[in-house]
Structures are given as structure tokens and as C-alpha cells.
């Protein structure tokens, strides 16, 4: 096998391979961010693609007859493709698992087994399934589906056999290895047989997935789905329904899977406990992702490859109508396939309070994925490229949002420290009044870590995303009707304005919020001379304690006014008020201060009760009153601060 052949085989695998490596790199992020969890989810689809692309690409480009007519035996072709696949998958898996070991992300045994076995089984079974369905999409779906089915079945069988609590690691691993290796061996043999006997009938392209499969529809439905000579819009809808057939089939299978799981869980509560449950949930999430992305990109992708898209652009129907019908049907397919089944069926597994959150996250996620996949399908040519672009596009927009979230307050800080416009109290007052709107209250709720905050954060992100989403939808229409040069650069060029808009929205909202917040702080400081002192003290403490290691009640941090002055320039009036006070900062937790704030007050108005620990700081003043401050230990933001009458309360532990 010479260098050119190696290059030709390895080329389509390059980007997915890089993607898996990036995902592994994300695991190494410290502190563990949600991106780490994403990378876990990205590993399985990543190696799935790596395993199916070698053969899938031949079908996509219709080059299989060309390959099979070259002067090399089928055994050689088989060996070449398998070895490239194996090298790619195993190196990626090696990197991934080493990163996993090194990182601080927790995974259970079952997850690790699932992923490791997946690497081996995918390499062995993907060629067969891809050859069977004659397309990449079909290969991906069946490889993943059958493997998961066997995995879950094995897990359940072992559970019923041994009982979960008595399930010892060696037995589990031994039995599952036996099952998986056996399956892998069988698939390897079947795949080789399939290639040996492969006949290039008809159009050896991706059409076959759309026509393959049994015609199981009842005749009445078939009758309705036939196109009529009148009623163009209905015909377009019928055509969409037919094009989305793979999505309907996969959704049905997934729904069946969910139903089985729910039944098992209802029958025996502990069946899905622990790590096995994590695997199941993970698989469920991956399935939902795949269905949503497929629903968005399948119809337009297949039409672009087969040429019927160009045909439709020459018909006397407005492109806007066609585009709208496609988008609408994609959303319908996405919601019904990826959203409904888990919600209706598996929703029973969750408790009622979590239900609302999970439902919202699910629906929002499905909508976002479908629209992103649709946008990608408009921007590139073909289903598989569209699917491959969907996640990078989403990650790009998400990163833009996060960048804006960081840049907004940073810029405001910079601006305020340079220009200090709030020394004019009237201006500060006017600005602070702008904060009395629902949007800012939403941001407040989202950032204060209460039970509502998750929901509020979601709603906030959704609202900030709206302009970018609208732009994406409009842009997809423009991309729909243009005949594109399929190049990475053109997609990036289309993506850029989208990312910029997301960045600007996030940046503007948070910068403004920060701006108004600081104005409000200044107003409060101006009203009460002690207020300014409190503000400066709080800022100083925030700067100091951010760099400090963990505190607790037994090891409080003692600071003097000089330490504060070093961290933050204190004004003369503040120094006078503070005098020679000793500031104590320590870890507090419920129910010691079941509320937090001044001990004389009950629950301070407007502050939610915390369910976890926080840093408490008390600053005794020269006139006998004291300040209190509370910081969030994880984000270092101020939860609340105030002025209390009387002496500070005694510490939980006496300071030596």
C-alpha cells in the first residue's frame, strides 16, 4: 500500500479524527467545565463516524464501482480500509482514555466499558452496516443502534442474572467482553462476505437508504402520500414527509427503546441506578442529538446531492415557500422524533420539579439543533457534510456567547476604572433606574444559584440568542436559493456574521447589566456614607479572597485595613470608618446562619435561602456596628453585603 493510497483513505477521516482529539483535550480543562461533559458525549459519535466514513465516502461520491474496477483484489481493499480505520479509531481512543484518566471528570465503570467496547465494535461492524445500507447515514444509525441494543441487553441480562449489588467488576467485564468480541468477530466476517459479493447495481449512491426498507405503511396512508396533479403546497409537504422517512423510522426505533427502558424502570426501580443508568441516559442523549440533527439536514442534503434541489429552483414556485415548508417539516420531525418520545415516555422516570427543567432544556436543545442542522444543510452540499458541520457551528456560536459574557463586564470594568462617570451621583441615579426591568431581574435570578436559576439561565440564554437565531433563519433562506461553491471558507464566511451577532448580543446585555449594577451600587453608596465604605470594602475583599485557597470555619482569613488598602484604593472617609478593625473571612454553612445577613434581622428581604456553604466576612466598624459580606465560593461573586447594627456575631470556632 503506497503513500498515495494511504493518503486517499486517510483524507476523509482527518477532520473527525481531529474533532475527537479536540474533545479529548477539552477533558483536560481545569476547572472542569460543562465542555468536559460534552466531550464525553462527542467521543462515541466521533469514532462512529471514523468507523463508517471509509466505506460511506465511497457511496457518497459514487466511487465504489471505480474502486472495485481497479486492479487490486477485494481482500486488499478490505484490509486497507480496515487498517486505516483501526489506526484512526485506536489512536483517538488511546488519546481519549489517557486524557480521561488524567482529568478530573468522574465516570463510572459502565461508561468506560461502553466507550472502550464501542471503539472495538464500531471498527468491526461499521463496514458491514455501511455496505448493507449503502450510505454513511444508514451505516452510522445501524452500527450505533445495534451496538447499543446489545449493550443494554447484556447489561440487563447480567442484572437479572446476578442482581445489581452483587455485580462484580471482573464478571461484568468478562461476560461483556465475550459478548462484544463475539459480535465484533461476527460482523467482521459478515462484512468481508458482503464486500466479496458486492454487486454495483443501479445507482451506487446514497439513494438506497431512501428507497430501502420495507413498505410497511397501510394503503390508506400510502394513498394520501401520493402526489396529486393539483395542490402544489400539499405536494411539497407530501414530498418532505417522504424524504424524511429515515428520520421517522429511527424515531420509531428510538421510541421503542425508550418504552422498553421505561417499562424496565417501572418494574424494577433499581434497574437503572448507578453508572448503568448514566450510560442509558448518555445513549438517550446521543440518540436525541442524532435525530434532531438528522431531521434538520436530511431532506435538503439529499435533495442537493441528487439534483432535485436544482430542479425545484426552476419550477414556478417561489423559493421562499419551498424553504419555509422545508424548515417547518424539519422542525416537526425534530420535535416529534427527538422531543416527544423521551418526554412522554421517559418523563415518567423523573420527579415533577426536575421535569419542567428537563423538558425545557430538551425542547430548546432540539429546536436549536434542528435549526443549526438546517442552516448547515443550506450552507453546504450533502447530508453528511451538513451533519459534520452542525456541532462546530453550534460550538462556534456558543463560544461567541461566552466570549461576550466575559468581555462585557471586563470592558465595563475597564471603562469605569478609567473614566469613573459615576462620581456624578445624578447620572448614576438616572442610570440605575434603567435597571428596573424584567430582563435585568432575569439576569439576577440566573446568576444567583437558586433553584429557579437554572430555568432563568436557560430563558436568558434563549433571549440573548434570539437575534442570532433570527439572522440564521434569514440567512438560511438566502443560502437556500443560491448555488454554492462548496468550500470550507464559504461556510466560515457565512458563519462569521452569525457569531458576531451572538457575541454582540451577549456582550451588550451583560456589559449594560454590569454598568447599571455598578451605577446602582454607587447610588446606594452615595445615599449612605457608610454605603460607600461598604462598597469599597466589598470590592477590596473580592479582589483579595479570589486568590485565596479554601477557607473553613477552623481556618479563617484574618485581614487588616492595610491589606484591604493594598488590594483596593480606599477613600479617606472609609478609612476613618474602618479605623483599626480586624476583618475575618471564613466558610459558613447552613444551618448555622440559616439565613445570612444581620443577626438581628430575620430573613433579609429579597434574598433566597441558600442550600450550600458560602464565605462569610465580618468587618467591625469603629462606631460599634459592623459590615457583613457573603461570597459564593465557586464563582467568587458577592451574594449580599450589608450594614448591621451591633457587634458581629461570635464565630463558630474560636480564633486562637
Amino acid at each position, binding site marked *: 500500500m503506497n503513500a498515495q493510497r494511504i493518503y486517499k483513505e486517510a483524507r476523509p477521516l482527518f477532520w473527525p479524527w481531529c474533532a475527537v482529539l479536540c474533545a479529548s483535550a477539552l477533558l483536560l480543562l481545569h476547572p472542569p467545565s460543562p465542555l468536559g461533559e460534552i466531550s464525553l458525549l462527542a467521543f462515541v459519535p466521533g469514532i462512529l463516524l471514523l468507523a463508517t466514513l471509509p466505506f460511506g465516502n465511497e457511496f457518497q461520491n459514487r466511487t465504489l464501482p471505480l474502486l472495485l474496477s481497479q486492479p487490486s483484489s477485494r481482500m486488499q481493499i478490505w484490509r486497507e480500509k480496515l487498517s486505516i480505520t483501526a489506526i484512526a479509531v485506536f489512536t483517538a481512543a488511546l488519546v481519549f482514555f489517557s486524557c480521561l484518566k488524567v482529568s478530573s471528570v468522574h465516570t463510572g465503570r459502565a461508561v468506560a466499558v461502553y466507550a472502550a467496547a464501542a471503539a472495538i465494535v464500531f471498527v468491526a461492524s461499521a463496514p458491514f452496516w455501511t455496505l448493507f445500507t449503502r450510505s454513511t447515514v444508514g451505516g452510522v444509525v445501524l452500527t450505533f443502534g445495534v451496538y447499543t441494543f446489545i449493550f443494554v441487553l447484556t447489561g440487563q441480562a447480567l442484572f437479572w442474572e446476578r442482581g445489581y449489588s452483587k455485580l462484580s467488576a471482573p464478571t461484568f467485564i468478562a461476560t461483556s467482553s465475550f459478548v462484544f468480541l463475539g459480535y465484533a468477530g461476527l460482523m467482521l466476517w459478515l462484512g468481508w462476505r458482503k464486500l466479496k459479493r458486492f454487486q454495483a447495481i*443501479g*445507482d451506487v449512491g446514497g*439513494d438506497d437508504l*431512501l*428507497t430501502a426498507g420495507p413498505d410497511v405503511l397501510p394503503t390508506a396512508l400510502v394513498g394520501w402520500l*401520493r*402526489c*396529486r*396533479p*393539483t*395542490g*402544489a403546497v*400539499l*405536494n411539497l409537504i407530501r*414530498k418532505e414527509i*417522504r424524504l424524511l422517512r429515515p428520520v421517522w423510522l429511527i424515531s420509531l426505533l428510538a421510541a421503542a427503546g425508550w418504552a422498553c427502558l421505561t417499562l424496565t424502570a417501572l418494574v424494577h426501580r433499581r434497574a437503572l441506578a448507578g453508572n448503568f443508568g448514566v450510560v442509558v441516559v448518555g445513549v438517550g442523549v446521543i440518540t436525541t442529538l442524532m435525530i434532531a440533527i438528522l431531521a434538520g439536514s436530511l431532506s435538503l442534503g439529499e435533495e442537493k446531492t*441528487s*439534483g*432535485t434541489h*436544482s*430542479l425545484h*429552483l*426552476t*419550477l*414556478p*414556485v*417561489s*423559493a421562499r415557500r419551498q424553504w419555509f415548508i422545508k424548515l417547518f417539516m424539519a422542525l416537526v420531525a425534530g420535535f416529534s422524533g427527538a422531543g416527544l418520545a423521551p418526554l412522554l415516555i421517559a418523563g415518567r422516570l423523573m420527579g415533577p420539579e426536575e421535569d419542567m427543567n428537563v423538558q425545557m432544556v430538551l425542547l430548546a436543545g432540539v429546536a436549536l439543533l434542528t435549526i443549526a442542522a438546517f442552516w448547515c444543510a443550506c450552507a453546504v452540499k450533502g447530508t453528511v457534510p451538513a451533519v459534520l458541520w452542525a456541532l462546530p457551528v453550534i460550538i462556534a456560536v456558543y463560544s461567541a456567547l461566552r466570549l461576550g459574557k466575559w468581555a462585557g463586564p471586563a470592558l465595563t470594568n475597564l471603562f469605569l476604572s478609567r473614566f469613573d462617570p459615576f462620581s456624578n451621583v445624578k447620572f448614576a441615579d438616572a442610570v440605575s433606574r434603567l435597571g428596573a426591568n424584567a430582563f435585568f431581574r432575569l439576569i439576577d435570578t440566573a446568576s444567583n444559584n437558586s433553584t429557579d436559576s437554572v430555568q432563568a439561565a436557560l430563558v436568558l440564554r434563549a433571549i440573548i440568542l434570539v437575534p442570532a437565531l433570527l439572522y440564521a433563519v434569514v440567512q438560511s433562506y438566502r443560502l437556500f436559493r443560491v*448555488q454554492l*461553491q462548496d468550500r470550507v471558507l464559504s461556510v466560515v464566511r457565512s458563519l462569521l456574521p452569525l457569531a458576531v451577532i451572538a457575541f454582540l448580543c451577549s456582550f451588550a446585555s451583560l456589559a449594560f447589566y454590569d454598568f447599571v449594577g455598578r451605577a446602582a451600587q454607587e447610588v446606594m453608596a452615595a445615599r449612605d456614607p457608610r454605603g460607600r465604605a461598604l462598597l469599597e470594602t466589598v470590592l477590596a475583599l473580592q479582589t483579595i479572597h479570589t486568590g485565596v485557597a479554601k477557607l473553613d470555619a477552623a481556618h479563617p482569613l484574618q485581614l487588616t485595613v492595610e491589606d484591604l488598602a493594598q488590594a483596593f484604593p480606599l477613600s479617606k472617609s472609609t478609612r476613618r470608618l474602618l479605623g483599626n478593625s480586624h476583618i475575618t473571612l471564613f466558610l459558613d454553612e447552613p444551618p448555622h446562619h440559616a439565613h445570612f445577613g444581620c443577626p438581628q434581622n430575620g430573613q433579609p428581604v429579597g434574598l433566597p435561602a441558600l442550600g450550600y456553604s458560602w464565605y462569610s466576612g465580618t468587618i467591625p466598624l469603629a462606631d460599634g456596628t459592623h459590615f457583613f459580606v457573603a461570597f459564593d465560593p465557586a464563582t467568587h461573586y458577592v451574594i449580599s453585603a450589608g450594614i448591621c447594627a451591633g457587634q458581629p456575631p461570635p464565630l463558630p470556632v474560636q480564633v486562637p
Partner: protein
Amino acid sequence: MKSPTVPIQIDNLTYAYGRQEAVHNLSLTVEPGRCYGLFGRNGAGKTTTIKCLLNLLRPQSGQARVFGLDPAKREVEVKRLLSYVPDQVAFYPWMSVRETLDYLASFRAHWNRQTEQELLERFQLDPAQRTGNLSKGQRTQVALVAAVCPETDLLVLDEPTSGLDPIVRREFIEAVIGAYQQGVPGGRTILVSTHLISEFEGLIDEFTLIARGRSVLTLEADQARERYQKIRARFAQPPPEIDLKAALRVRRDGRELELIANGSGPELMQRLRAHHPDELTTESLTLEEIFVATLKP
């Protein structure tokens, strides 16, 4: 339905793919009722021009008008007034012929069922057959049926017969003549873009030759055949140098001389006769030979 304006009017059309100019300052007019040929080598810009008419591409400068309408602004109306047979015919493989025709009929206000029936019989197409199982020629025939039945005033054919066997090619042209050209002579207009010129020789009234995006020659077919002549002369001895600069091409072979003349036929004949050839014949060039003579480097 007659329109007062010309079916196709293209003025100074320019289109570039990136930096590569595909069409440069192209102008042509198609009068109603004519069959207009767009000839050129592969990659000359024929398909690009047609795509500009259908608003599949937006020209960088110049304009294209279909029945006086701008395809970019009045897109749906323009598409209603014409029907199109593309070079790569693509249908949904799971739809039968019947269903495909029904589907395409739903976009048209008018559809002649009788013509459809006749054409299906003539082409011997089974309506229940799935389009995915048809051969390339049969798919082109279905595309032609779908283009003829709406009975539009303009038919645009883009390389319709490339890749088809000779019998299917003939049937295609006969169907265009028979089924499409109906009614008042000025009613139906055809624009054909092709490089298989010999097939369409009899059909073309007027043509434009395009090379590298530029229009090289625009003539009526009869005029062209009159003007371009191939003159053969045979002498007793190899002739001395004759002033043949007026000829388009000259080929010498010992005592024989073959010239291709572009309008200067009589003059060249006179000059040759002055040298007393043994034999002197003249015949006209077919459109395909004109194509080769003009465009061959």
C-alpha cells in the same frame, strides 16, 4: 397567449465564478416563434447564460429579460412562462413516472393531458415504473414530457441529448417538433443549448456561437449555410502561390486544395479559376462544420 415583447433579450451579460469569467458581454435576442441555438464548446458559458435566465445565477452586470420580465425580480412569473429541460435530469427515485408527472403538474396552471398520454405512448414509457429504475434516456424523455405538457410559450433545452443513444435522440427531436411546436407559427419559441449540432441542424432558425464566454458569431441558419462554403480544387500540377487570404481555412495536399470561405466564396472561386484547375467544386457547410471551422484553434 401572446406577449408583446421578445421571449429572450440578453444585453451585455457578464458573469464570473470568482475570478474566472464565464460569460462576458454577451448579447442576443430571440424572436418569438423561432428556434434559437446556443452553440459552444464545453465550458464556453452556455449553461451559465441559461442559468441567468432562470435566476439560478445573478449576473454581475448586464441584464437578461424573459418576455420583458426580470428573472431576479419576477421570478415565479418568469418560470411560469417557460419550461426547462436540464442537462442533468434528476427525479425522486421512489416516485413512479405517473406520480412524477402529477407532482410537476401541480405547479402548473395548465397541463395538456392528451399530449401527455400521446407522448407516453410514443416513448413507450410505463407510467407505473419508478424513475429510479429508468435509463438515462427514459428519464430525459420524462423530463421532456413534463416540459411540453404545460404548453408554455418558451422551451429552454440545456444539452438535452448528450449521453443518449441515436434513436432516443431522434425521438426527442421529433417529439419537440411534433408536440411542442403547435398552433400559431409565432407562438412557441425554443432555445437550445448544445454541442451536438448535427441533430438540431434542421430545427435551428438562428444561432449564436459562444467561445470563452463571448459571442463569436450570430447568424440565421440559412444565411450561414449560404455564406460558408467549402471549395475544393484539383490542379494538373501543384499550383503556384495563390492569394487565398480571404479564406477562413486552407488545406493543401499535393495537387489538391481545400478552402473554407466565409462569404468570399465567389471571389476565391474566381482566383482559383484563373489557374485553370482540373476540377472545382463547391458545397455549403453544415452548422456543425461551421462550428468546427470557427472554433477550432
